[in-house]
């Protein structure tokens, strides 16, 4: 149970980072932390005690293995997270070019 609580704590740290920080780069880092917390949660769901990864190897018989389905999901999720992060960074660079700042409270020239 303690591992799920720690995972939720990691999620809360990321959420705090997104809601409370004003620098766009720190918000992007917070998004990354949230993403990794969710990935960790998926992996924890599939975990079994004293089990090993479901990969066949030579001269070995695996009797006790973890659930491979969350791992496949997390692999896809990592790829999507990479693309999303690249997109956000590109938008952040564009904002910096246009406004000269990363502070979200100073970006106010949206109207008109």
């Amino acid at each position, binding site marked *: 149970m303690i591992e799920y609580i720690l995972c939720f704590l990691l999620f809360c740290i990321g959420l705090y980072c997104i809601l409370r920080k004003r620098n766009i780069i720190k918000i992007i880092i917070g998004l990354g932390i949230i993403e990794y917390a969710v990935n960790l949660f998926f992996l924890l769901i599939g975990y079994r005690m004293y089990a090993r*990864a479901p990969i066949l190897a030579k001269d070995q018989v695996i009797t006790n293995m973890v659930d491979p389905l969350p791992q496949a999901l997390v692999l896809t999720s990592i790829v999507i997270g*990479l693309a999303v992060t690249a997109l956000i*960074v*590109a938008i952040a*660079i564009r904002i910096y*070019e246009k406004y000269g700042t990363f502070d979200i409270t100073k970006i106010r020239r949206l109207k008109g």
Partner: protein
Amino acid sequence: MKDNQQKGMSLIVKTITRLTVGLILLYGIYIVLHGHLTPGGGFAGGVIIALSFIHLMLAYGKETALKKLFQTLTSVLESMGAVMFLTIAVLGFLGGYFFLNFFLNKGRSFELFSAGIIPLCNIAISLKVGAGLFAIFVALVLFRSLGEKK
């Protein structure tokens, strides 16, 4: 020489990069080729291959890295990866259905040349991922330098 020193990072970083960048590239290729036997595969190996070029770019500045791998070449490689993956998938129709293993010789398990079309798919994915990730990085870097010029 002075002008060459200015670009990129310090001499220590450049020396370490020169020693390690080939090893990183080789490790990426190893991960791709053994994707069907050990953990790893197309995506992870492609990311490591792209990271070796990004490493070069961070240490030596963008001119040296772009001399090794042009921007147009990266887009060609990326498209080639996608087309290769689709071709492997469509070649399965020779036997009747999508993604059919068209190799008659199955090979023995736990050897490098086994598992039919999966290693070829891994190579295609690694081309796509490696070239794509490097292209993203190059696009961000060039984007910033364009903004500074304005």
